């Protein structure tokens, strides 16, 4: 795999975002990581709007669900409709197993779920470790 995968973290909570960054740091993952505070900002980043450089493939999206302006589900709808973004790999960050269960009705082809609230605090780290192996092994579109 020649190219390094870019992470796009879509998360409005500062502390939750820090949690992801620290976990990546602990795993010694040096991938570039961009942070968007909500779905609108995330789309701007992906499309290169508002004077930004668009995020280039290969990238992987870590998506929180509860955000202002455009929440996680609305974001998923938007990228599925956009042919240039519909193939994005998305991992959803949920704050509870319950919330995760509630999503089962949404067929948005998410690649997986990470529960933030994991009592075993290493849970996030293990999930990111899995993602790390995922992008090393899987062909990105």
């Amino acid at each position, binding site marked *: 795999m020649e190219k390094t995968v870019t992470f796009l973290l879509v998360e409005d*909570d*500062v*502390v*939750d975002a*820090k*949690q992801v960054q*620290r976990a990546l740091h602990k795993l010694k993952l040096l991938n570039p990581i961009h942070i968007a505070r909500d779905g609108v900002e995330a789309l701007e980043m992906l499309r290169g709007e508002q004077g930004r450089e668009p995020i280039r493939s290969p990238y992987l999206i870590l998506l929180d669900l*509860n955000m202002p302006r455009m929440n996680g589900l609305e974001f998923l709808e938007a990228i599925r409709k956009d042919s240039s973004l519909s193939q994005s790999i998305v991992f959803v960050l949920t*704050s*509870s197993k*319950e*919330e995760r269960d509630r999503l089962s009705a949404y067929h948005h082809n998410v690649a997986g779920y990470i529960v*933030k*609230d994991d009592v075993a*605090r290493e849970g996030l780290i293990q999930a990111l470790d899995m993602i790390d192996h995922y992008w090393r092994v899987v062909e990105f579109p």
Partner: protein
Amino acid sequence: MSMKNPLRPDTAPQPEPVDILVVNDEPSMLFAVQSLLIDPAYQVEGVGSGEAALRWLLRRDCAVILLDINMPGMDGFETASLIRQRDQSRNTPIIFTTAYRTADVDTAQGYALGAVDYLFIPIVPEVLRSKVAVFADLFRQRRQLARQVELSAANHALQREIAQRIRTEQELHRSNAELEQFAYVASHDLRAPLRGIRNLTGWIQEELGALALSDEIRENLGLLQTRVRRMEQLIEGLLAYSRIGRVHGNLETLDSGALLAEILDLVQAPAGFRIEIGERMPVLKANRTQFQSVLQNLITNAVKHHDGAMGRIQVDAIAEGDGYRFTVTDDGPGIPPQHRERVFQMFQTLRPWDEAETSGMGLALVRKAVEYAGGTITLNEAPGGRGARFSFTWPVVPESIG
């Protein structure tokens, strides 16, 4: 009230008999009229005076009054006038009977007093019977009508009540849905900042780990962490507690023995503990989430509150009444009688919660779930003197409800 006519046993049951009042001071006349009116459709009452008639009419209603005009004391006309003055007998048909087939009889007066007819003595049996029959029929019809009106009114009242109950039920559903939404959002929004605090204190601890911190700082950070954890437990406990009775889960057929094996996996008791499950654990229909949480809580409690490194917990069940009785017995320190009610209350613990690491919600939840399922739970000393025994009943759900 309808009876078969003993004289004509092959016929259909007779209608409810109507009352007929005969008023005549001469016993032979009374007897004659009564005999002429023998019929299962009639209940004939004979009295010998106007006063007696009035007394009878105080208690009863009748289809027609056969009233003799010539009576000593109060005659027929006077009696009729008094009968007409009473609300309940104002419209009762009166047939005057009189021996005088002469113009002396003041028929006009009789009719003015509300008589509907006259019968002249000697009485022609067919005439008597046919006149009485007319009024008997009329009375029966009016009685039937009155009953139908009553029935119709009762019906309407019932329908109004049903409509009211449906409305109440709908309101309840809506209110429950709102409550569920509220509980979910509240717990979700409360947990988010808690998670943040937990993370931040953890990171601070990590960052400061290498430095020489005062014991005080370390201790305070530790206390911070446990308090955050406690809040998280409380929120979860409250949410679960509020759900019982509000969220109607489906009833499933559960093998309690298999379920207990799963629970043992989840509980992860320390090495020295032995948890024994009875031999014949029943299969029953119950809400899985609640039934499981009851057993899981009781077993977890027994392990957590044990004061030794080795413990023995027994779970058993017997059929009782129309359901089963489950017991969870431990050989721990037991619970003194004065606390046995208190432990079931919300947020109650017997040790400072810092030590016990529980939310205090477990038993409150257990009791609520058991009672919602229709059972009862009691706490006693374990047989053998040491430890506690929790015993609860779980009624079997009748097929039609599940």
